[in-house]
């Protein structure tokens, strides 16, 4: 039923109107959330929760605060360096593990041992072995952001249609070509989901490292500062910073989705 409805929808409504309707729905969703938040804050339903209006006003203020913007830039730099590195590390490894089950089996124990180790616990180690600090930050980001890409690549590769693989093999292509020309493109959309997961993890990790270690700026260091405030004031600052983190994630994700739609046009069959 839903399927016929969407198919029909595609046929009749003009694309620009459909897009407008979509943005309207986006706006409605956000508005409802903000309204609920405002009510929860104003009515004192949840005490100490700063109302949406107060928090958002602070969010806007931060946009004009050069100190904050510098911190934001520093966090984004670390994240922007870390994400491509994580992709470069995790995708090949995932392809290898996905296509050669023996290797996967042999390394599973160590992979599964490493994955649940909180990066926060590794901060001292990274700080000691990687200098300057930005390197330690990036190393931790790569460590944490690699897992979702790795696992999604692994599962994506396993989901490749064997008939497609056999087709290429039958033309005499070697394993490398099969991976490059069939496994990778066929798993690409799913790998991309992993990358989108990783993108927010890079942000989260950059902030966490800064928050724990303090250090040379970044949103995390800004959070330390914010937490020296008192009561509701501190809360407003913390929430405003979190909202910024969320907004940045939203923007990054939108960009990634755009790229995804470009890359995988064939998927909208």
């Amino acid at each position, binding site marked *: 039923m839903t399927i016929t409805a969407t198919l029909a929808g595609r046929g009749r409504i003009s694309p620009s109107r459909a897009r407008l309707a979509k943005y309207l729905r986006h706006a409605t969703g956000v508005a409802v959330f903000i309204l609920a938040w405002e009510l929860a804050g104003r009515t004192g339903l949840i005490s*100490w929760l700063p109302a949406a209006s107060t928090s958002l006003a602070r969010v806007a203020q931060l946009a004009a605060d050069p100190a904050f913007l510098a911190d934001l830039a520093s966090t984004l730099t670390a994240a922007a360096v870390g994400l491509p590195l994580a992709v470069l590390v995790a995708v090949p490894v995932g392809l290898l593990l996905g296509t050669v089950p023996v290797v996967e089996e042999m390394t599973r124990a160590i992979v599964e041992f490493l994955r649940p180790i909180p990066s926060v616990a590794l901060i001292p180690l990274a700080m000691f072995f990687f200098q300057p600090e930005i390197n330690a930050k990036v190393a931790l980001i790569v460590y944490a952001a690699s897992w979702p890409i790795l696992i999604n690549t692994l599962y994506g590769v396993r989901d490749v249609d064997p008939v497609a693989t056999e087709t290429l093999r039958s033309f005499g292509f070697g394993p490398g070509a099969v991976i490059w020309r069939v496994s990778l493109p066929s798993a690409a959309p799913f790998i991309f989901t992993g990358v989108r997961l990783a993108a927010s993890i890079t942000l989260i990790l950059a902030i966490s490292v800064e928050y724990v270690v303090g250090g*040379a700026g970044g949103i995390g260091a800004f959070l*330390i500062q914010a937490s020296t405030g008192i009561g509701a004031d501190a809360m407003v600052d913390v929430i405003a910073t979190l909202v910024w983190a969320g907004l940045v994630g939203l923007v990054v994700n939108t960009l990634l989705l755009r790229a995804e739609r470009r890359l995988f046009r064939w998927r909208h069959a």
Partner: protein
Amino acid sequence: TSGGGSNANGLEKTDLLIGQYPGADSAPLFIAIERGFFKEQGLNVKTEAIQAPQAVLPKLSNGSMDVVLGSYATILTIQSEGLEKFKYIADSYQGAAGAFGIMVRRDSPIKKVADLKGKKIGVNALKGLGVLTMNPHLKIAGLDPTPGKDIQYVEVPTTNWLTALQKGDVDAVWMTDPYVSEAKNKLGATMLVDTMSGPTESLPITGWAATEKWVAANPKTMGAFQRAMAKAQNIAATDRSAVTKILPTFTKIPAATAATINLGNYPTTLSAQRIQRVADLMVEYGFIKSKIDVAPMIVTSQG
């Protein structure tokens, strides 16, 4: 950090990275920066906000950070675990009445310290100054302060001190000012006991530390740092308004609140004897396993 640059005083290095916790403890540091005391000594100081010295320990060890502000309790813990060898190069902050204490709600059934039996107390760190200064008071009231016995300590972020107290998530919170005043004014909370009184009166809180290696390698730089800090410390000790004015510039404490804040004291000399009190308390309450002699850790001004 490399030295370099013009170096009139023969300093080993002129660029310093200082770790500090943004609070009243580090007010003299910012006074020194603001008034150019470091510049006078040929030092170029950069600061970094940190949460606790443990987190930046690797940076101190590998030399990317020079000096850190740390609570005596923390530095002594690290010292006794053998992770790093520290020297104190300057004192910073010392307890005073009214600024540190256990806060309870207005309508709380807890009227005296003994009522805390079986209750949950919020603190900023499980092995921090709060617990260390509360323990003697609990002991006097006949309670066993060993964690898990008569008292449960719960780590609560400072941001949530007031909320946790008001919501009843914990029965009491150990606070420092300005939270103490804020809790009194906003929540009508009361101070059950001042933890900088009686057995813990005027206990040293925080001081400036550097690694033994650093001190050995940079004696002149250290001297310059000490001289600059001493000047600022003097101002803080004598001119309260200098402190309350500088506070809002590096913390989120509003100027109005800062003006009425209860402050600790800013000692102008490093005294092994005073700090030994902290070490002894730590041994007594199991913070560290064996007795530490503080005197060799003190490096007083040279050249």
